[in-house]
């Protein structure tokens, strides 16, 4: 019973899943998750937890765990719903439900929760400054070359974007980046990195970048 106790953070394209195996009580799992996050240092910082595999938390446990993960370690919890492919029982933990082999790993709560927290920054973000936030970032000013914006959600620059922008960090491919003058040194959305074409095209209209068919596309949004 005690053998093979393990907590793992597995990256998926939507965020991290917590894999739990061989644990008895909720307290033991919490301890193991704390140890895991502590040893990983800031690796998981501003990462998104999208589900749990191998253990079914009740509502109270989810609340406690969410609090610990978000407040103590700076991750964002989208869902702690059990997503195991062999025994998916999200609504009623007690009642055994027919197994759904191809259940998507994403909870529907995810898309909504991304929009709930936005950081507003007023003024020019100059070279050497780095702004990180697990939700969205809105800049009321320019983002200059040498500056970096990293958001778990979307990035909107109400000015010129000339630095590096990473929306949907680390792996949210639904995020977008938009700005009035769209001229970033480098652009990252989720796990995809792109840079502007070599020839200089001065953008005139406000533009938006998002992922379409696994590629970042940039187009005017007005």
């Amino acid at each position, binding site marked *: 019973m005690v053998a093979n106790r393990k907590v793992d953070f597995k990256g998926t394209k939507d965020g991290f899943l917590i894999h739990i195996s061989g644990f008895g009580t909720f307290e033991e799992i919490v301890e193991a998750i704390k140890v895991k996050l502590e040893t990983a240092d800031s690796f998981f910082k501003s990462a998104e937890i999208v589900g749990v595999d191998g253990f079914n938390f009740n509502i109270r446990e989810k609340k406690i765990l969410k609090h610990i993960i978000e407040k103590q370690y700076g991750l964002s919890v989208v869902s702690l719903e059990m997503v195991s492919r062999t025994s998916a029982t999200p609504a009623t933990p007690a009642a055994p439900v027919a197994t759904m082999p191809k259940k998507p790993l994403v909870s529907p709560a995810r898309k909504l929760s991304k929009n709930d927290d936005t950081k507003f920054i007023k003024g*020019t973000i*100059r*070279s*050497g*400054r780095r702004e990180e936030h697990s939700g969205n970032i809105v800049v009321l000013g*320019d983002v*200059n*070359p*040498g500056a970096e914006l990293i958001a778990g959600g979307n990035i909107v620059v109400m000015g*010129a974007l*000339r630095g590096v922008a990473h929306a949907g960090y680390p792996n949210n491919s639904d995020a977008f980046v938009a700005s009035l003058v769209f001229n970033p040194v480098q652009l990252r959305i989720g796990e995809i990195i792109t840079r502007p074409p070599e020839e200089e095209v001065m953008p005139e209209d406000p533009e938006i970048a998002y992922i379409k068919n696994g590629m970042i596309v940039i187009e005017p949004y007005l």
Partner: protein
Amino acid sequence: MGEVIVITSGKGGVGKTTTTANLGAGLALEGKKVVVIDADIGLRNLDVVLGLENRIVYDIVDVVSKTCEPKKALIKDRRFDGLFLLPAAQTRDKDAVTEAQMVELCNSLKEEFDFVLVDCPAGIEQGFKNAIAGADRAIVVTTPEISAVRDADRIIGLLEAHDLRDPELIVNRIRIDMVKRGDMMNISDMTDILNIDIIGIVPDDEQIVISTNRGEPAVKEMESMSGKAYRNITKRVIGEEIPFLELEIQEGFMDKVMKIFSFRR
């Protein structure tokens, strides 16, 4: 009570020292009492540009370590009434002075002088921190090159973080002919990115090389274009409204055209 102005840039070789020397001399010509401090300890230059190297006895490290009185270390420039230099130490490094000591030094000097100009070293390390520590106001020097503008942007961010709000910009070594051909960044390219007020545009001028090598600030040379630019900057620093910058370029450009014509005649 005077004002402490730090002249900084981030990147090296853009003309901080030349600007400090000319602004200092220019302010003295305007009848102000000025001290220029060389904060580039270990790589001192300001004394050479001002032609005062052979008169150094004591330096900034002697002053902050209380080896001598500030008055004893100050070198009076005999050509410009009211201009004094506090030289850097050449045999020490940036750690020989602390930020607190710089604050104390600046505060004591501004009791007596109208302007205290601090010539900041390149970089963003201890030397930079020292140089800006006691400043009330900052002037950022850049040249029309992407690398210099990038560094200026970084510096402006650091100045703002140290509560030196609204630094002013000097664009040095601009070549009007190249700007007109579109081969050099123009003024609006730079102000678009840096987003601060511009206080002067200095054309690329052979005269400045000659005068720097001779140790004579160009600001007193009535004929030279850069000298004229520095006189305008001086006036703007003391709060005079001097005609618009684009006009200054035009004027400089027209001067050049006139010169060519007069030559041919």
